[in-house]
């Protein structure tokens, strides 16, 4: 047994004849800040979908907290402590922002005591994300950016062990980005493990302790931010000259 | 005062299919009943009281019937009830009549009283004491007489109440008369768009006789498809509803020639029952305005007859007492526009009088073609026969 929180072994995912992921391994340590980068279409989101259970991988297996979760449904994975945001926001449109957060709070964070008072807790998270003023707005009235922040907030509301943020910060200004990074760092200090997918190098490089680079569905590099920045393959495939 | 007069009216209540699959026939039946009402009222009503019809559309939905009869009896407080058109719509009302001990005249129910055995139920369709079997006896009698004697039979029925029962009777008759059943299938009704494959399967069995239980839409499809694939059994027809309708006759025209089907009335010299022609004249005057079957030979005379019979019974007993009227109807022979009627077991006709008619000599699609004698030739029973069966079918085509 490893002391990793998440072990992804040889995961392959095909869409028709096209292989979006080919035998990819990932190992994320407990309480690690982990970056996942790669060119567009390299399979990052697909990987997250496999880990969170939104897609079933064709080959390989996924172990979380010592338990093989390859075949268990997504909601159980969330209850075990994996929570993700969606790159393309998927809000609950008939609900307000606050009610959006109540769903994961009720179903994932407090799954055995339905009906507990959740609004206070939801409000705290919104305040953390500086979205408190939008609490009673229906999600139709939010901008793309706000929707992304809602995605992150909702993922946090599941009170996960592992938080996966799929481009939640795209489009944020540097100040806002710093605010969010600070929140994430604080959560990490409290014991949360975080996988960050982001194309904003400033964010990923500053935040991550370790980074894996995907390209065309395969892992091409793994290492500390410094190692990654200086990796020739990564430069060629992703960073550019 | 008008209210006192209204109280003196005799109210006859019923549900009738005015929309839905049975709507066309139901509407024509209603017109016939209204003509009877006007006839009676012109003569001063029943025992001096004017007749009023109280009716609601059951939309051909049995589920509507219980509510309608409850309304008729408890809210409208009608004096008499008669049935709507068709077995499905008669049966739901029967127990209500039974609970209240009322006379209940039925309009074209096939063995509707089998379960209830209610003695004040009287059904006007001349099917006979064992309706399901008697219904097709004529067809088989005709077949059995032919030389060489036909050997095989194909049965086809629409998957709904009347057609299935008709074919169930035919099945028993086939056994009784010793014909071998080589095809016996049902088709979904409603829901069959094309009959070609079905009739090809029938043709593949090469039957001598082809007995069909079908409803108007299907009957048309079957006749057309039979011509298209040249299906030529020696005797063809039996229980096809719709061939009696003028619009369908006008559309099918010559395609009808040679088909032998059950029939209730035709302008043949053997069927000039007292009052029928006067009734039809009135009907035919009004029908086009209401977009109903213009000739009205099928159901309307019987719809007239079943209320006529009730009215006559009231007059005869000089009473509005249900039990007395019931007993009178049960024990006497009645003269109506559809001939002499005597009821027997379960309120069905004591003896079967379902005609078998062969369509002959049709040369055009004009309506006048079908109001003439000699086109719908009664070939069974002997008593009413107006011509000879042309056999085999292909010869009459």
């Amino acid at each position: 047994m490893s002391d990793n929180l998440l072990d992804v072994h040889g995961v392959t995912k095909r869409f028709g004849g096209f292989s979006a992921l080919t035998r990819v391994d990932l190992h994320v340590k407990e309480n690690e800040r982990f970056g996942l980068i790669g060119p567009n279409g390299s399979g990052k989101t697909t990987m997250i979908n496999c880990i969170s259970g939104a897609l079933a991988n064709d080959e390989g297996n996924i172990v979380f907290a010592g338990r093989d979760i390859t075949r268990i449904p997504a909601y159980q994975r969330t209850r075990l402590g994996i929570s993700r945001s969606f790159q393309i926001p998927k809000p609950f449109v008939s609900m307000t922002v606050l009610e959006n957060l109540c769903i994961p709070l009720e179903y994932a964070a407090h799954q055995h005591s339905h009906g507990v008072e959740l609004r206070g807790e939801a409000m705290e998270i919104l305040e953390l994300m500086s979205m408190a003023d939008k609490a009673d707005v229906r999600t139709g009235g939010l901008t793309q950016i706000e929707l992304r922040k809602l995605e992150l907030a909702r993922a946090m509301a599941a009170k996960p062990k592992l938080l996966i943020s799929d481009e939640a910060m795209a489009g944020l200004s540097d100040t806002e980005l710093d605010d969010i990074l600070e929140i994430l760092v604080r959560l990490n200090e409290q014991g949360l493990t975080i996988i960050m997918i982001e194309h904003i190098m400033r964010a990923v490089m500053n935040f991550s302790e370790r980074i894996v680079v995907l390209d065309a569905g395969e892992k091409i590099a793994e290492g500390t931010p410094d190692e990654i920045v200086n990796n020739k393959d990564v430069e060629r495939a992703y960073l550019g000259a | 005062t008008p209210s006192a007069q209204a109280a003196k009216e005799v109210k006859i209540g019923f549900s009738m299919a005015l929309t839905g699959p049975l709507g066309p026939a139901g509407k024509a039946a209603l017109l016939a009943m209204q003509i009877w009402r006007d006839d009676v009222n012109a003569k001063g009503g029943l025992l001096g009281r004017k007749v009023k019809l109280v009716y609601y559309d059951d939309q051909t939905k049995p589920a509507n019937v219980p509510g309608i009869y409850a309304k008729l009896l408890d809210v409208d407080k009608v004096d008499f009830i008669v049935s709507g058109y068709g077995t499905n719509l008669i049966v739901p009302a029967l127990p209500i009549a039974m609970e209240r001990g009322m006379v209940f005249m039925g309009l074209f129910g096939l063995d509707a009283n089998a379960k209830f055995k209610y003695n004040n139920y009287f059904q006007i369709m001349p099917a006979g004491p064992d309706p399901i079997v008697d219904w097709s006896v004529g067809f088989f009698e005709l077949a059995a007489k032919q030389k060489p004697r036909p050997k095989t039979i194909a049965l086809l029925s629409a998957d709904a109440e009347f057609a299935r029962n008709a074919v169930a009777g035919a099945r028993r008759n086939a056994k009784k008369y010793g014909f071998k059943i080589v095809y016996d299938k049902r088709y979904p009704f409603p829901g069959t768009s094309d009959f070609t494959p079905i009739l090809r399967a029938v043709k593949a069995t090469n039957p001598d006789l082809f007995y069909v239980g079908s409803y108007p839409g299907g009957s048309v499809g079957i006749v057309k498809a039979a011509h298209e694939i040249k299906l030529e059994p020696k005797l063809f027809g039996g229980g096809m509803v719709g061939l009696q309708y003028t619009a369908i006759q006008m559309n099918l025209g010559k395609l009808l020639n040679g088909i032998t089907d059950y029939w209730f009335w035709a302008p043949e010299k053997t069927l000039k029952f007292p009052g029928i022609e006067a009734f039809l004249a009135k009907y035919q005057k009004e029908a086009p305005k209401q977009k109903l079957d213009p000739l009205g030979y099928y159901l309307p005379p019987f719809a007239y007859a079943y209320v006529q019979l009730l009215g006559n019974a009231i007059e005869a007993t000089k009473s509005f007492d249900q039990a007395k009227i019931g007993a009178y109807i049960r024990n006497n022979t009645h003269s109506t526009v559809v001939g002499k009627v005597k009821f027997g077991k379960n309120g069905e006709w004591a003896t079967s009088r379902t005609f078998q008619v062969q369509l002959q000599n049709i040369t055009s699609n004009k309506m006048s073609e079908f109001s003439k004698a000699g086109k719908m030739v009664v070939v069974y029973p002997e008593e009413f026969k107006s011509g000879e069966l042309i056999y085999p079918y292909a010869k009459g085509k």
Partner: protein
Amino acid sequence: MRSSTTRTWKGPTLAHSIVVDNVSAGYGAVRVLHGVSIQVNDGETVVLLGTNGNGKSTLIKCIMGIIQPDEGEIYLEADGERINLAGKNPEEIVNLGVALVPEGRRLFPRLTVEENLLLGAYREEARRGIDRNIAFAFEAFPVLAERKNQLAGSMSGGEQQMLAVARALMSAPKVLLVDEPSVGLAPILVSRVIAKIRELKEEYQLTVLMAEQNFNQAVKIADRGYIIVHGEIAFAGEDTEALAGHELVKKYYLGA
């Protein structure tokens, strides 16, 4: 910068510029823009800077006719003619030669890549150049050629962004509005997309207004720019140096 050359050889008869004069706009009770005036001259590339929620997209939507300004005027100056854009539908504005790469891409997810591109060339004037434009799109973004029969909705985020840019160009626009083209793109693609926009711009003599957060990339092609803060123009930089030197830019984009 490089684009200054473009400006010189463009004849006045093909001039297309956008003038936004004192525009105020918003969504229902939410007021977003307050008296904004900007101008994008013929052949220029102007960048619109500003952090989230300050009104960049709103301004672009106003120009495009997606929302109507409450106050102020918006003109398209084409060939010396002044066309009032306020009150026009997006489709009418598109037919005047203005194209938008919208925020959130807005592709047709259940049409193929190719069909998306062809639909981009709907307007009468674009249909003539369709073969040339499609060839150009495939050359600029080879992945689109490889995947031309894939449904747009199943492409990755970045691939979709490329398709959105390519599709806008299919309408053979004279004025291109781009709302944050680099969002969600890998760094290598950001520079490629930006470079492509410049290439296209030169090829077609486009006038470009681009909302962008990635300052370093934006200034590679921008002639000048505006900084928008809380729905007002906080600074109009006459050239890229002026922009780079501005304290707001330093604060927000250059990590100073």
